[in-house]
Structure formats: structure tokens, C-alpha cells
């Protein structure tokens, strides 16, 4: 695992964009939006599985950020704050969806993934992820998809460092169990 750190230049760039937006420059927000749209969508998709729902949540997240950027206290990086909002909103949406679709079969959930995504992603990964809790999916997505380190994850999920480490370990184990069930054994492949 290569631990990803945002460079100082990137951090400064985000801070400057935030300040410019708060000073009334709308184009600064467009720059933040263009820079982080893909990451927010990816993170939301990791929690929600469905790309369609992830796209909706992504729009909501940026709307929230647009309206509440003045509340950003600058004690963390903008990206950490953004991912925290994304995770909270995605988990919230996931709970609503679980309530609505608790009788939907997993296979149907996998089929609901957009065709473009299905071309690239292994459906067994989707099925294993679907069996995890939204919190497990969130921490795995932050670590493996967003390549955040444990410190950043602890800030994004508002938990301490040790809790982040323990949760990541357990989520990875649970994923492995479910994934191994989906993956045919070597003898079955042959």
C-alpha cells in the first residue's frame, strides 16, 4: 500500500480556492468541483455500490459544501472535510436505501450497477462489498480507493487513529471472507 499524501502545493491550492470562493469568486468553487468531483463520486460509489445513487449523493455533497464552506474551520485539509461530508451523506443514503430495498436480492443489486462500471469491475467484488456494512465500505474505500492514510481516515470518519486501524483491519477481514466465498476455487476454475 502506498500511502498517499497530498502535496503542500495541492493543500495550498485548495486553501486559496476556498478563500477566493468565500471572497465571492464563483469560479474558485468550480475549480474545486472539477478537481474533486471524481473522487467524491468514487467514494460515494464505494459506500453505495450504485453509481446512479452515488451521482445523486455527489451532487448533494457539493451543494452542501457550496452552502456551508464558510463553516470549514481550516484545521483539517479541505479534502478531508469534503470526504467526511461525503461519507456521512453516503452512509445516511445507504441506510435509507437498505430500508427501502431490504428485500432486493443481491444479484439484482449487482445488476443495477451502471453498464460501464460492470465492464470494468468484477461483479464478485460488488457482491462482497454489498454484504459489508456502509461503515466497512467507507473505510475500505477511503483506504484502497482514495488512498488516504490512517490519520486522514481517522479525521474523515471522526474517530481516533487506533479505532481507524482496528476498523480497517476488521473490514478487510470481512471483505476477504465474503470475497473468498464468491471466488471459485482453483479446482472449480479448471
Amino acid at each position, binding site marked *: *500500500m502506498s500511502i498517499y499524501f497530498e502535496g503542500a502545493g495541492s493543500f495550498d491550492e485548495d486553501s486559496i480556492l476556498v478563500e477566493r*470562493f*468565500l471572497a*465571492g469568486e464563483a469560479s474558485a*468553487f*468550480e475549480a474545486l*468541483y*472539477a478537481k474533486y*468531483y*471524481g473522487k467524491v*463520486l*468514487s467514494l460515494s*460509489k*464505494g459506500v453505495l455500490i450504485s*453509481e446512479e445513487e452515488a451521482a445523486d449523493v455527489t*451532487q448533494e455533497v*457539493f*451543494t452542501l459544501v*457550496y*452552502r456551508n*464552506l*464558510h463553516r470549514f474551520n481550516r484545521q483539517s485539509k479541505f479534502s478531508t472535510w469534503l470526504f467526511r461530508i461525503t461519507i456521512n451523506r453516503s452512509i445516511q443514503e445507504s441506510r435509507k436505501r437498505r430500508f427501502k430495498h431490504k428485500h432486493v436480492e443481491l444479484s439484482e443489486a449487482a445488476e443495477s450497477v*451502471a453498464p*460501464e*462500471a460492470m*465492464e*470494468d*469491475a*468484477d461483479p*464478485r*467484488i*460488488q457482491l*462482497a*462489498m454489498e454484504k459489508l456494512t456502509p461503515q466497512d465500505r467507507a473505510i*475500505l*474505500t477511503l483506504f*484502497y*480507493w*482514495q488512498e488516504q492514510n490512517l490519520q486522514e481516515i481517522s479525521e474523515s470518519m471522526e474517530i481516533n487513529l487506533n479505532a481507524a486501524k482496528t476498523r480497517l483491519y476488521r473490514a*478487510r477481514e470481512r*471483505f*476477504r471472507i465474503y*470475497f*473468498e466465498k464468491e*471466488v471459485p476455487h482453483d479446482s472449480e476454475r479448471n
Partner: protein
Amino acid sequence: MIPKEIDDLMWAIAEGTDQAAIEEFGDRYPNLREELLKRIRTIKALKSGSRLPRSITTPTFQNTQVRPANWRLIWATFSLAILSIVAFGVYRANTSSLPKPVVPPVDLSHSQLPATNIPDATQNIPQPLRVPQNNQNPQGNNQPLVITKPPNPSNGLKTMKLESATLQAAILLIAEEDHMTVTIAKGTPNPTIKIDYVNMTPMDMLKDLGQQYAFTPVLDGEHAILIIPKKDEDEGQINGDSH
């Protein structure tokens, strides 16, 4: 059961891309080679899940209705609201401490008499009420005194002409103009008269008739009039004509 340090080592190797480390671990722990391969497969699956569709396009962000918060404007509005509340409070405090306006005396000479005790109407006309000094009501507390004048049914000016009618019929007609009921006491004269009143209140008409034909009209409640004859008047004055 895999010891924790070996377990951690396996995850670390699985998450790295160092082929030599994988080979070395396999040589050292041949019984865990398969387990290591599973973990490598798991990590590979987790990382591959992050791929987004190639055709992803960033839609245009639309939130033109919401403007970034202008804290100066918010503070200005909030301060203005606070100032308004304070100013209103001061205004209310000042106005409540001012002396109450003095209500001018009200002439209640036409006020009604009690219906049960009217021996002599001329003696029972009450004196005009006057507002006590220091704006105190008769009970002595500081509540503002509010005097409501009883409704005077004779405010409207009327014109009444009769060529020939009995006095009591004329009284009834005049009272009817003011929607009043009339009780005529026994002994009231009833000559045939002629009247011609222009722009007078019905009560004034009755008073004028009373002076001519020796009776007194007295209000009995809001909508009733008593006609009381004057016993000591000289009936010789009654000549049957008026105006």
C-alpha cells in the same frame, strides 16, 4: 491460528508489489503460501474496485440560487434587528410611564333613570359626571377611567308635521321616529293638536310638547320613554294648538 505478527506481515506483503518479498515469504512459510495468495487476491480486488467508468464526465454544478454567505450582511441584519427590538422596548417603557390623558367630563344630563323609582323625573336627573383629579376612578385605583356615554336615541334630527292628531298619538309617532316605545302615564292630557317641527330631535319635540301640554318625557332604559303628566300645571294652558 496464524500469529498476529505473521498475519500483519502477510497483509503488508499482500498490499505491496515486491515480488521478491512474496517469494521469500513463500519459501519461509510454505504452509501459508496459499493464504498469502488469497490475501494478495483480496487486496487486488479491493484496489480494482475503485475504477470508475471511462466515460465519466463531470456535470456542470448548478447552484446559482444560493450565494456564499456574506457575514457582514448577516451581522448588519442581525444588529439592526436587535436595535429595533431595543428601540421598541424603550418606546414601550416610556409610553407606559407617561401620565394618562385626562378624559374630559361628559355631560350625562340625558342619562336614564332607574325604571323602578321615578316619582319625580325633574328631581332625578343626575348631575354631570366629572373625572376625578389625578386621573383616578371613583374606586381610587389608578386604572384609567373610561366613561361611555349611554346611547342617546334622539341624536338624529327629524322633521315632523301633523295637521290634526291627538297629543298621545303625536307622542307615539314622534317616539316611533326614534324607534322608541312609549309608556304614557295616566292623567296625561290628550287634546287634538297640530305640530310642525323641522330638524329637531324626537326627544326635543317631546320636551317642547311637554312644556305646552304639561308632561315630562323621561328616558326609561335605552329604548323606552315615560310620559309623566305635571299635576300642578294649569290645565287652562292647554289650548290645542302648537306652532
